[in-house]
């Protein structure tokens, strides 16, 4: 059966929704988790600090594709647990969140460590509690400082969603590959490329707006 270009686009658009879901859920999970990981990394409690350091080095030192496969096949091969079919998507999200949290943690950490001690001291003298100091004084400034690095990661994430093909999750790229091989045409890849580009264009635009919004101070 020859698929028309419209059908290809519709099928890819459907895959696109899945890609967007991976993208959105990954950010929702990994941005806050990354902050906790950063705290762990900066903890004075040595065992925790070392554990987090190890975790981050594994996440950054091995391919995300491999991590997805471990999360997806791990329960069965390591523990003999039979996973249900819905686990594929869950595995994708777990893998992405764990991976991106590690990257975000390092970005948060560099941002937090770049804050001048004077800001903490001014807050301490004024009587702010530790958590007030962090959430009112430090974090807003850290976010401004790290936003360019976050933007880089977020744009990489758009493209990384295609790695879910490693465990055959039906996001856009997996669908494009399937159509391409069954129809022997490069057309789906071209369409998918255009989709990714538009997606990233929008993401970049949003991030730029956010950076502008924070440019009211220096």
């Amino acid at each position, binding site marked *: 059966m020859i698929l028309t270009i419209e059908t290809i686009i519709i099928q890819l658009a459907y895959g696109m929704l899945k890609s967007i879901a991976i993208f959105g859920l990954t950010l929702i999970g990994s941005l806050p988790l990354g902050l906790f990981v950063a705290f762990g990394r900066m903890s004075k409690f040595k065992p925790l600090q070392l554990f987090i350091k190890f975790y981050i080095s594994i996440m950054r030192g091995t391919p995300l594709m491999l991590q997805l496969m471990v999360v997806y096949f791990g329960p069965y091969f390591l523990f003999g647990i039979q996973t249900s079919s819905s686990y594929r998507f869950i595995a994708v999200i777990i893998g992405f969140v764990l991976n991106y949290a590690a990257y975000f943690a390092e970005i948060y950490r560099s941002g937090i460590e770049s804050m*001048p001690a*004077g*800001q903490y*001291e*001014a807050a*301490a*003298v*004024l*009587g*702010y509690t530790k958590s*007030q100091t962090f959430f*009112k*004084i430090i974090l*807003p*400034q850290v976010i*401004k400082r790290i936003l360019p690095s976050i933007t880089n990661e977020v744009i990489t994430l758009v493209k990384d969603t295609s790695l879910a093909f490693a465990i055959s999750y039906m996001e856009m790229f997996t669908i494009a590959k399937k159509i391409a091989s069954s129809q022997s045409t490069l057309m789906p890849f071209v369409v998918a490329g255009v989709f990714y580009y538009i997606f990233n264009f929008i993401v970049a635009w949003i991030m730029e707006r956010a950076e502008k919004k924070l440019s*009211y*101070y*220096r």
Partner: protein
Amino acid sequence: MKLLEMNNIKKSFGDLEVLCNISLSVSKGEVVAIIGPSGSGKSTLLRCATMLEKIDAGDIIYLGEYAAKNTAEGKALYAPAAELKKIRNYYSLVFQNFNLFPHYSVLRNITDAPINVQKRSKAEATKTALSLLTKMGLEDKKDAYPYQLSGGQQQRVSIVRALAMNPQILFFDEPTSALDPELTGEVLKVIRGLAEENITMVIVTHEMAFAQDVADRVIFMDGGIVVEEGTPKEVFENSLKDRTKQFLQRYSHK
């Protein structure tokens, strides 16, 4: 009445003993100037008084309440957190490099802690802030952000921020050292004005003429000890110690 008593304070950083058994007491309405060469421990003393740094031994007493008390073993024991929180309300500190919050407007820099720390009403905190800003000639800057102000203006805002907390004692650590020479005057003028209002202040400064002029008492520190202490006249004109004379000579030749 004594607002602050620091008795036999000891503080080391590693092997370096920075404060060697220093005592400082400040009465209500008094202006104390602390002078001394670089590295003599002046900032460290202020940082210990404001609890930015922990002392190793000695007492810190604000208005008769112990923030830290020397134990029988000769180690400083700090009061419980709730007590320290209360004591923090008794003082404020103006930093050399202002340390304003860059993401807050001038007004918010001043009102945020009164509202969120002291739980005062927004209306009252704003009113206090605006009247202090007006007094400093900065009322038109209330919506500006720190980066839009000159160093002198930033330092005056940070003085307002400290005053807005209604402290009993105001500490200054070299309030004009980060400023261009032509901007120091406006800040010193403000501090002079506060002295005239009998606000209790402890000022670390390298501005000798200012210290001589504004202080009720001058403390000369060197090597982590108080070398000499007295009225400006006693210290600047009739100093008894050679170290003080040498220091003052070096400064007057600058």
